[in-house]
């Protein structure tokens, strides 16, 4: 076990070596979230708040047929916020995508696009969980314990629901599991 003296020294040294030190470095660090503003919540932008409200009303109007309560409205607002977040990210990606089309070898553009992919993934994830909660609230079920989903008859989309296996990892996992089962069954 690490001694208290070593823990104290590690923490003291860690404090000395973390983060930018120079004034310029600290200023750059402070300005980093302001570059595109995609990490800021939608509702911090006063201009977008009415749009969120209108969109939430539209979600309820087009999705629900039963009685609607405050809980439903709150979840619909979260879905609306995530949708607007997604639109912001995609608008930010647009010029980069055009630039990449023009110069595919530009590594800076590729890196910038990959960085924005992260924001898109987060917004999609937020929307996904809010939509699941909304669906569960409409159906009166528990979102944490979803019913088994039957495929609702989109034969043309069945193949699209499977992500391609890029590195054969699932094959390897299957192999490992079957070996483990064999070992356990002995």
């Amino acid at each position, binding site marked *: 076990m690490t001694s208290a003296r070593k823990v104290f020294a590690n923490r003291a040294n860690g404090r000395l070596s973390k983060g930018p030190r120079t004034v310029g470095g600290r200023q750059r660090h402070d300005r980093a979230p302001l570059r595109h503003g995609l990490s800021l919540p939608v509702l911090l932008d006063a201009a977008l708040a009415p749009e969120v409200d209108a969109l939430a009303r539209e979600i309820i109007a087009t999705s629900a047929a039963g009685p609607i309560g405050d809980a439903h409205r709150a979840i619909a607002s979260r879905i609306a916020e995530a949708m607007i977040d997604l639109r912001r990210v995609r608008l930010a990606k647009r010029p980069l995508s055009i630039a990449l089309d023009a110069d595919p070898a530009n590594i800076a553009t590729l890196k910038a696009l990959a960085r924005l992919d992260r924001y898109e993934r987060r917004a999609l994830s937020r929307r996904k969980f809010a939509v699941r909660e909304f669906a569960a609230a409409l159906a009166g079920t528990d979102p944490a314990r979803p019913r088994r989903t039957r495929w609702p008859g989109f034969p043309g989309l069945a193949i699209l*629901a499977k992500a391609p296996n890029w590195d054969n990892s699932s094959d390897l996992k299957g192999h490992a599991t079957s070996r483990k089962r064999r070992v356990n069954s002995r």
Partner: protein
Amino acid sequence: MSSLPAPNPLAAECLGPPPLNPGDDVAGYETLLARLVAEVGPRGLIEAANLRDVADAMWEGARLRRVKAKLMTTSADRGMSEVLDAIGVPADEARALAQGWAAGELAAVGKVDAMLDAAGLDIHHVMAKTLSLRLDQIERIDRMIAAAEARRAALVREIARYREPIRTAGAIAATPERECTEPPAPEGAAAAAAGAAA
């Protein structure tokens, strides 16, 4: 965007403009979206947004594949220059020949082909060299393609997952029901099964 599955202009605005760059095939994108809409029949803004994202993810994946192919083509002269250099052609001459070859100059193409033949090499060696020179970019593009395809697959599953509990509880405005079936086997598997039965 006549095929956009949006109930009203507000919804169309919230989904943002379609992901079309200058020179993209607008009709192709609209056809893709129209086919998805015909297949799923989206009900409400949530399903419309999910479906639009499926189309966008597919479009983005296709574009990134095009970008990768374009990168390989536009970098082929560098690969050729390196291969010529490796088989003993002086660096300046190799560069000039590679540029001429990339520009399609007949004299340069003939000379380069003869040199590669003499060394027992062909265009595949040149493209392999090009790939190794651009491996960093290709790897990044491949990761982005994989992300777009994973996104597409997750969105399709989410459409099914969203529809099921609501439909069962009858909490959504009624529209004509679709027959509920299991996902069909891929075409290749069906053909193989038919062949085995025969």
